[in-house]
């Protein structure tokens, strides 16, 4: 059961459960669309596109973890949450999933609701809550930010993977009986490894950006008083 990789394909979960999560995802995304109208200024728009492109590209490189026995890819929730915030972040991940399902069949179209719930909603929400919490506790230094990004990545990936277990328990097309516990364990173990890989990439990426262009990191921006926010887009950053 190597690469469950979080993209649920057609036929794994039954129709009614898929439809129910589809409705849930639709409502949640509508809320994100509404809330991100305020966030998506001139500067965040390209950043959101880059975050989406980055997740898209890195998800296409299924990288072997350690021995190659387990392979997986980034989910990107933590990266999106730190760089563009929870609302736009969820939309970025959702866009990636929609495009992937339409043209790659990577995650079935009929299962889009499930995939969006796990990766775009749960993944980003967990990551953002952790980031918001940790940035208050940890010192506001480069290493503090690195630790924050790492922890948020690992945990968000873990929680998101259990979203699949829940959905499978609710509507798996094959009754695996007591193995559901085993499924949860396998998913957790595999995604711990994926999470570590994701954590490393997220942490370095975020730190690189925060060092050179702190103005681009949403999570840091929300800590500052609002008055320093500016509307002019500036190459090389804002003053």
């Amino acid at each position, binding site marked *: 059961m190597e690469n469950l990789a979080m993209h649920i394909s057609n036929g*794994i979960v039954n129709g009614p459960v898929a439809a129910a999560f589809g409705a849930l995802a639709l409502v949640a995304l509508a809320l994100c669309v509404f809330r991100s109208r305020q966030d998506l200024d001139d500067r965040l*728009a390209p950043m959101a596109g880059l975050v989406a492109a980055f997740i898209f590209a890195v998800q296409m490189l299924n990288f072997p973890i350690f021995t190659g026995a387990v392979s997986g890819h980034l989910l990107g929730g933590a990266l999106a949450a730190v760089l563009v915030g929870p609302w736009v972040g969820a939309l970025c991940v959702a866009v990636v999933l929609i495009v992937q399902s339409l043209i*790659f*069949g990577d995650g079935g179209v009929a299962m889009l609701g499930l995939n969006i719930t796990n990766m775009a909603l749960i993944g980003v929400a967990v990551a953002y809550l952790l980031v918001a919490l940790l940035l208050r506790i940890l010192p506001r230094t480069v290493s503090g930010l690195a630790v924050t990004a790492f922890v948020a990545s690992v945990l968000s990936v873990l929680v998101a993977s259990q979203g699949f277990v829940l959905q499978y328990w609710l509507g798996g097309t*094959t009754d*695996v009986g007591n*193995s559901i516990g085993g499924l949860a364990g396998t998913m957790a173990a595999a995604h711990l490894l994926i999470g570590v890989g994701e954590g490393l*990439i997220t942490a370095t990426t975020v730190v690189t950006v925060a060092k050179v262009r702190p103005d681009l990191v949403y999570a840091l921006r929300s800590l500052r008083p609002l008055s320093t926010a500016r509307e002019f887009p500036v190459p090389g950053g804002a003053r």
Partner: protein
Amino acid sequence: MGAGHAHVLYRERTSAVHRLPPEVKIAAMVVFTLAVVATPREAFWAFGGYLGLLLLVAAVSRVGLGWLASRSLIELPFVVFAFALPFLGTGEQVTWLGLELSVDGLYGGWNILAKGTLGVLASLLLAGTTTMRDLILGLDRLHCPQILTQIATFMLRYLDVLVGEARRMRVARISRGDDPRFLWQLRGFAAGVGALFLRAFERGERVYLAMVSRGYQGRMPGVWLATGAATTRHWLVAATVPLAATGIAAAAVVLG
């Protein structure tokens, strides 16, 4: 997969399917997939019917069966899951070649294999006949919120930027005596990713500002939205396949 580029799946051809407006193709593909997923797994003949429909579309769109087959390998990871199910499933068991298999698990595996494969083939037909840009245009015409299509537009643009900047960084390194096997060997995998990210962002930001200088205000100019939008005829033509699929699904449910 190492592809990383958005257009890899597009097959440059001229065919009736290529010429269809993207929004009808998206709608047809989604309805088709829903019909497939709604089909009871025991109705083997129905899946044969779906495959027939897809092969028909493939023939009309001239994307090539070999290409379809090789590209559909993307679902391999899920197939592994499908093959695990007969061992994991509970309930009635059968013995085959000395293996204890769950009947429910066998059906489950078949279910995933069949529906997954048909779904992937349907997406591949969409991808093979529609550019990424047209896809976004189609989503826009299907009233996808503008904020999503805007992010998707930038995503598309940045995929090119990422690939371009990665190429530049590689060329810069090898021509000064470095011998990397991967882009990532620049002070480890992650540091390379971070540097690439920043570089792509700053390039993309400059591009964005240049767009703004030419009057961009968050939405691509209307010309590209207005020309070639679907007519009733397009919708009718494209509806044939999903309608046939829905018919098959209904029959399967009733007979099933």
